[in-house]
């Protein structure tokens, strides 16, 4: 049975405020006696650790990079949404809420999304006070832009580096607490297991990546803010170290994993250029504000210099298919449209593996309308990045873009308090499943990470701690801790002992290819069934034939990679299973059997629910639970961006 989502009663717009007044508090004198572990130092983790430390709890924060400032939130380019209505263009909390619910294709919880929209404005206040240098107008007030298909300008940005600046703000708050002794920071530590005592989350096991030391840590509760699992696809816009390990290990300990098949493919990334490529680079979606997407009408023109193709021979397919949203159609829709034209043989750019997978994003008309200077001011660093990677000058010839894996809406199941089904285990940011349904709107992940970290977790964690009290706390000496450490050591030893012939990266690549083909932009029963069998076979092969040189008693990146790939090999199967059972198309999940002429066909009667998967052991079938999505306020409608 699925646990209770604990949605508070009362009118939608008042739920959070009234819930907050009912949450229990911890006496300030006692806070220092509670130890909270926060895993992750991205927007969600840094914000949570800094805020909890400031409130007086004893906090330990872990991340795998050499510094908390390097969490992958740093790479976000485009911006962060907030319902400030500074532009007076009719925005409001209500409208941001409605856009997010609709954008998520009616697969998110109403109450969570409304809370997110409510908190959005306080985030901007907080960040500005911290010194985040958002773009400003000449009058000195904050500037906004429209982003990712929104019809109002509610996105705040800092050049093309919004994530970096927000993270540096959260990192500075975290650093202040570290300096004050309220938070202890453990960089270069990877969480490899969760420790349960009496059914509650009471600690973790980590490996010190610099020394190889494996040990456990006891705490009164554990907060996971470990980001998304997009790297299951091998090629994605995520950083190299992004992993599913922390959440998957918690899942193996009993935490439900919700909607793993909801992944987001971002339409504007630099196309794949070769076999040895290690990552894909996003070109901020804000580029679609000024760029027009097209391919040649005739496949025979695809190899030609784009400037030699006259206007009538170009197909501006987004403008053609979605006249009211045009180039700003939501991500899932824009991505699928690009795939369609390329599958139709009309892709552009160099052929990789015999296919041209790219479409043009053309700035020529904006440059002639606004001048190159304006375009340079808006997107200069993105054009530079594009030039570095492709060796092409996008001021002179159209950019080439293609969709790439970018974000994962699925994640550990949490209730309204962001607590998983394991008491004492909280999950924030991209690591949980809570707010974006089947598709996330642009500029909403940063908002969610900071809302969770600054404003939700500090209140709900306190409520849990006040409830369990200080009596009978685990000392960290118990058998549960020793057992978890022994199991982790055993697993590390197994990886080192295989001594096979293949690199972990080669398995990762093969896994990526399987899930990209079967569980990427288009999914079918046949493809998914085969993928599940293929992943199992690949996993068996991995454990027989992977090679991890060294003894692991030192900085050993190859061992780190192998451990993460091993977890992706288990998780990838779950993702495909989830996609297989969800016999409908919604948001980023497109089942070829369920469409009306290329447009997604949702099935609200059968699938208006959250799928939450329970681990039943290695090789055993996981169990799917369903949490019905009860909408008290909005009505299900079919998304249309035509």
């Amino acid at each position, binding site marked *: 049975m699925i646990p209770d989502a604990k949605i508070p009663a009362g009118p939608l717009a008042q739920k959070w405020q009234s819930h907050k007044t009912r949450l229990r508090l911890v006496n300030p004198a006692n806070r220092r006696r509670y130890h909270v572990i926060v895993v992750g130092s991205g927007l969600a983790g840094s*914000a949570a650790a800094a*805020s909890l430390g*400031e409130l007086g709890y004893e906090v330990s924060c872990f991340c795998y*990079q*050499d*510094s908390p*400032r*390097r969490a*992958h939130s740093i*790479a976000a380019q485009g911006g962060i949404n907030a319902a400030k209505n*500074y532009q007076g263009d009719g925005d409001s909390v209500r409208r941001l809420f409605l856009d997010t619910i609709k954008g998520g294709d009616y697969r998110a919880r109403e109450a969570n999304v409304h809370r997110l929209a409510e908190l959005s404005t*306080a985030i*901007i*206040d*907080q*960040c*500005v*006070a*911290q*010194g985040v*240098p*958002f*773009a*400003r107008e000449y009058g*000195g*007030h*904050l500037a906004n832009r429209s982003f990712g298909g929104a019809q109002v300008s509610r996105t705040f940005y*800092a050049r093309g*580096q919004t994530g*970096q600046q927000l993270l540096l703000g959260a*990192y*500075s*708050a975290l*650093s*202040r607490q570290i300096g004050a002794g309220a938070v202890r*920071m453990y*960089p270069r530590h990877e969480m490899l297991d969760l420790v349960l005592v009496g059914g509650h989350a009471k600690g973790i096991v980590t490996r010190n990546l*610099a020394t190889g030391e494996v040990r456990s840590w006891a705490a009164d509760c554990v907060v996971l803010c470990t980001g998304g699992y997009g790297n299951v696809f091998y090629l994605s816009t995520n*950083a*190299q170290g992004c992993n599913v390990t922390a959440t998957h290990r918690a899942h193996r300990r009993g935490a439900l994993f919700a909607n793993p098949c909801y992944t987001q493919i971002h339409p504007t990334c630099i196309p794949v*250029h*070769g076999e*040895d*490529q*290690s*990552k894909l680079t996003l070109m901020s979606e804000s580029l679609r504000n000024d760029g027009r997407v097209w391919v040649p009408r005739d496949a025979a023109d695809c190899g030609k210099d784009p400037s030699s193709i006259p206007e009538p021979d170009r197909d501006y397919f987004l403008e053609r298919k979605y006249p009211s949203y045009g180039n700003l159609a939501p991500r899932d829709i824009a991505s699928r449209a690009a795939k369609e034209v390329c599958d139709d043989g009309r892709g552009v750019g160099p052929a990789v593996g015999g296919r041209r997978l790219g479409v043009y994003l053309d700035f020529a008309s904006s440059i002639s309308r606004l001048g190159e200077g304006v375009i340079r001011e808006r997107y200069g660093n993105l054009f530079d*990045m594009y*030039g*570095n*990677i492709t*060796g092409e000058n996008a001021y002179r010839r159209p950019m080439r873009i293609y969709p790439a894996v970018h974000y994962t809406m699925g994640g550990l199941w949490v209730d309204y308090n962001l607590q998983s089904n394991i008491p004492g285990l909280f999950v924030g940011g991209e690591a949980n499943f809570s707010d974006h349904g089947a598709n996330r709107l642009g500029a909403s992940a940063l908002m969610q990470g900071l809302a969770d970290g*600054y404003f939700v977790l500090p209140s709900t964690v306190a409520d849990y701690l006040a409830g369990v009290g200080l009596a009978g706390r685990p000392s960290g000496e118990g058998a549960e801790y020793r057992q978890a450490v022994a199991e982790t050591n055993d697993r590390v030893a197994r990886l080192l002992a295989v001594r096979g012939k293949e*690199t972990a990266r080669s398995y990762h690549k093969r896994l990526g290819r399987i899930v990209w083909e079967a569980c990427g932009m288009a999914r079918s029963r046949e493809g998914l069934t085969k993928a599940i069998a293929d992943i199992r076979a690949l996993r068996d092969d991995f454990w027989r034939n992977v*090679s*991890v*040189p060294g003894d692991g008693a*030192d*900085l*050993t990146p*190859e061992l780190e990679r192998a451990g993460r790939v091993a977890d992706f090999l288990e998780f990838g199967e779950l993702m495909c299973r989830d996609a297989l059972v969800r016999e409908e198309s919604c948001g980023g999940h497109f089942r070829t059997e369920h469409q009306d002429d290329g447009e997604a066909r949702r099935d609200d009667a059968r699938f208006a629910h959250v799928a939450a998967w329970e681990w039943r052991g290695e090789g055993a079938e996981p169990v799917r639970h369903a949490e019905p999505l009860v909408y008290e306020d909005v009505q299900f409608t079919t998304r249309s961006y035509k």
Partner: protein
Amino acid sequence: MVKENAPGGHDATLRLTLRVWRQRRGQPGAFEEHTLAAVPTSASFLEMMDLLNEQLVRAGKEPFAFDHDCREGICGMCSMTINGMPHGPLPGVTTCQLHMRNFRDGETITVEPWRARAFPVLRDLAVDRSGFDKVIQAGGFISVRTGSAPEANTLPVPKPVADAAMDAAECIGCGACVASCKNGSAMLFVGAKVTHLNLLPQGAPEADRRAVAMVRAMDDAGFGNCTNYGECQAHCPKGITLDVIARLNRDYLGARLRGFFASTGKPRRGGD
């Protein structure tokens, strides 16, 4: 300047000789030589290092450890000295954003870690940069309680000021400035953070304390003195300029002076 692709140049490959630094923590290190037969010119420098490591692992040998994460020039984790230059030959480009089309067929490339007293080698090409975090912990923040901030637009910030703060805030904390400096000074890094925060009206109340505390922490972390070589600016991938050092010196000296007068009973602003 970035080298542009020749038409159809996507598939060209290079044969390279690599001299790469090998070192275990606390032990002396040495260069090791390897050859790679076919490196695609479209690959990034780190993808080239991946190819080398794959080759080593397949032969049952230990790969080289190096730091990296985002591979898009923003996290500041990658850190290689390439042919003697931190982040390699291209200005304004991090190691991860350097692409192999900028090298020649048959070339020998030397790859070393950051070399600086305050950045001890952990292994091979990876160093310990925790000194930077300690400097930020000492004062690289504006003290504001979660949830206590005023409405964001109540404090307008002139666009030129906001833009200048943003210029300084672009620092990615990579440490190339330290690695390129003969003295191993961190003044460009510290100057960038102090400039970002002290320029903004939100940062003014703590401006004096910030400058003094961060400089003190920088000295404690073992970074050297600045003697105006200017190499840091030349190797900074984010275009941070020496102005930030001038600003830091001004704020620091001003703060010390005000602190001195404060201790002799004269009016005090901030102080240390």
